[in-house]
């Protein structure tokens, strides 16, 4: 069925690039209509595009020109190299040149264009990759390594063929929708956020990195589109519908018009919600709830304030480590924290210490890859084995602590030893500051994330030694249900509404109340409207969420009574199936805020 549909689309491309509708998972609301930017990945594949028969000559000429340009470039490079280091680099260029001068190679590529009616870039890519794969199979290391040279030549030829179309996200000059196989944290850190209007990715789920980033930037995103990158080429117009989970490639004029209208309506709804910004998050029966924002970059702090957030409940500090060649200095840390704290003055800013590793494992070049990074040396474990790096961050957080209400939060604590060690190092760093006569808040509040089943089960013990808990529902769900949230094959099993997850959350909340310490929710659960009544009913009074969702969540809080929420929670916690719970929650929420569902 699907095959047929695609065939039809291919066929109509002879006339004009046909409109194509793709269905994925909506992860960040909003509508964007923009030109696409297909981001280069390691295994970037040039989409197979068919050309009109008359176009063949043009494509053959483009291929020939690319060879000529690449040869010119290489000749210049070769001449510029001197004989130093035994002329090794010069030799490499000479080899590449010999290869590109090979007529049979060029013929192979132009023949492919002629016979299969494909673009020059596709023919170049397919042909060179096939040659490279032969090299890779060779047992002799010297020969197999030559595959790298072939890839290098492929890149060079493609650069000439595609020109500036393959620019990266850092140097944008116009509004784009980013289309990507899977968004890496490094790519995100390099975004020029002013110009990225939407994100669409082949892989991912509701809590994948692309989704989190899109929500925090307040731009629409759709993920799990499977093969979208193969259907879009750079510059195609795409509509990203982050409400319905749809991406439309090359929309026709009528579709664009409809979407512009729809987008307008959506913006109006958002404005309506913004109107409640100044109003407190208080339930109808007078219970006050504190809404904080989750942020990744300092410049998002302002958005939290604009949306009516009362502080930062989760300040992810990993961005400091990404997209830079060296480790951040203490000053880099301090500047980022000071900027954010400055926005909030005396309202809380909870800084989470480096949560590197696993999906955020950006420093893979420096450390041997682990077989199972989600269960490996990540997060607080990584910090406790890299104390110099940890100290640098703690030092900066403590320095910033005099600027406002800064709090420290340790991620992924799984046992009391880790908490003990982290606190011991914090104390050592405090003593360093004393000796350096640097002032800091000696009574800085220290909390931990509860995001593993072990921490949830040991909450009563851990509570004795911290000022607050923050329940990270994303990881807690993933570790409790043993589901990789980014794996499309099993991501449907991932649900915070699973009774096992809810029981752990209840335990944590009860233990925190008994120990009289604060307990927050900072996972995605707090930004999903259907969970709000349940969380209130379970006793949560502080939630930290992605900034664009704050008005909507506040609206829900203002429409309910805690009495009703308590009743709902009691019913839910008596249920044994995820589906039953999900349905019940959705029905309950629909009654309160129909337009959100």
């Amino acid at each position, binding site marked *: 069925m699907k095959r047929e549909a695609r065939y039809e689309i291919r066929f109509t491309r002879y006339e004009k690039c046909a409109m194509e509708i793709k269905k994925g998972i909506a992860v960040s609301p909003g509508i964007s209509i923009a030109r696409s930017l297909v981001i280069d990945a390691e295994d970037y594949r040039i989409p197979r595009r068919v050309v009109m028969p008359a176009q063949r000559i043009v494509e053959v000429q483009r291929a020939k020109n690319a060879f000529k340009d690449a040869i010119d470039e290489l000749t210049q490079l070769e001449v510029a190299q001197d004989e130093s280091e035994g002329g090794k680099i010069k030799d490499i260029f000479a080899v590449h040149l010999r290869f590109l001068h090979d007529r049979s190679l060029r013929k192979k590529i132009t023949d492919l264009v002629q016979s299969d009616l494909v673009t020059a870039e596709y023919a170049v890519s397919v042909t060179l990759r096939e040659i490279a794969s032969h090299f890779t199979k060779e047992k002799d290391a010297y020969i197999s390594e030559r595959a790298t040279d072939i890839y290098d030549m492929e890149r060079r030829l493609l650069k000439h063929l595609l020109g500036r179309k393959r620019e990266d996200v850092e140097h944008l000059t116009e509004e784009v929708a980013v289309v990507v196989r899977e968004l890496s944290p490094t790519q995100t850190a390099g975004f020029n956020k002013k110009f990225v209007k939407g994100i669409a990715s082949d892989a991912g789920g509701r809590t994948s990195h692309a989704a989190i980033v899109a929500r925090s930037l307040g731009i629409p995103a759709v993920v799990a589109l499977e093969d979208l990158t193969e259907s879009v080429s750079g510059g195609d117009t795409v509509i990203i519908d982050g409400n319905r989970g749809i991406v439309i490639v090359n929309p026709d004029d009528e579709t664009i018009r409809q979407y512009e209208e729809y987008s307008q309506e959506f913006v109006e709804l958002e404005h309506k919600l913004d109107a409640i910004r100044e109003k407190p998050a208080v339930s109808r029966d007078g219970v006050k709830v504190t809404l904080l924002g989750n942020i990744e970059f300092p410049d998002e702090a302002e958005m939290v304030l604009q949306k009516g957030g009362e502080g930062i409940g989760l300040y992810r500090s990993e961005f400091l480590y990404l997209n830079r060649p060296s480790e951040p200095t203490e000053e880099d840390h301090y500047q980022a924290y000071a900027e954010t704290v400055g926005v909030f003055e005396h309202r809380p800013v909870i800084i989470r210490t480096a949560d590197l590793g696993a999906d955020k494992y950006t420093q893979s070049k420096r450390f041997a890859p682990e077989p199972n990074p989600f269960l490996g040396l990540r997060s607080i474990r990584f910090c406790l084995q890299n104390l110099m790096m940890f*100290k640098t961050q703690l030092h900066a957080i403590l320095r910033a602590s005099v600027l406002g209400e800064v709090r420290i939060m340790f991620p992924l604590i799984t046992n009391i030893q880790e908490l003990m060690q982290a606190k011991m*190092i914090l104390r*050592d760093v405090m003593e360093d500051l004393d000796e350096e006569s640097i002032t800091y808040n000696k009574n800085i509040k220290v909390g931990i994330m509860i995001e593993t089943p072990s921490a949830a089960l040991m909450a009563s013990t851990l509570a004795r030694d911290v000022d607050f808990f923050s329940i990270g529902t994303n990881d807690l769900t993933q570790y409790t249900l043993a589901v990789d949230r980014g794996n499309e094959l099993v991501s449907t099993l991932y649900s915070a509404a699973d009774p096992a997850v809810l029981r752990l959350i209840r335990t944590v909340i009860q233990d925190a109340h008994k120990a009289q310490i604060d307990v927050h929710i900072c996972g995605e659960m707090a930004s999903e409207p259907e969970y709000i009544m349940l969380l209130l009913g379970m006793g949560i009074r502080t939630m930290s969420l992605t900034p664009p969702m704050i008005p909507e969540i506040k609206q829900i809080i203002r429409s309910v009574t805690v009495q009703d929420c308590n009743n709902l929670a009691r019913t839910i916690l008596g249920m044994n199936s995820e589906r039953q719970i999900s349905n019940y929650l959705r029905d309950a929420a629909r009654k309160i805020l129909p337009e959100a569902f």
Partner: protein
Amino acid sequence: MKFADFVCFEAVIPELKAVDSDGVVAELVASLDKAGRLGKDNCQEIGKAVIKREKEASTGMGKGVAVPHVKHEAVEDVVAAIGQSSAGIDFCALDKQLVYSVILIISPVDNPDKHLQAMENVFRHLRQEKFRKLLRQSRTAEQVESLLREADENPSF
């Protein structure tokens, strides 16, 4: 930093005489002093400083291990003593368990990073159950020394 870089093997006490945390600290400080690692007449002062710090927050980090430490001008480099107690000592550890191995670390004032490098090593090895068990089972100073040297050679140990 490896154990051999900062542990003073002459100051290893295979069976501590003291029965409380203050006594253990005093005994280990005296042992380092006897080995000539604390300069002149600093023993009392260092002992008091460690005990004071321990009173503020226990360094009993659970699983039967405590790591009392302090910075002091008497040392130019990190130096540590290790004491073992088969009966166990109450160090007010977080997990409320008795402590069987005590690693006392004295660090230089002017180079705080050295202290962290030593701690990093201690953390790494104390994470391993096998290491904690073998340390607790060591009955002589020689056994402790050979265990630490083996740990230095074998990072996964």
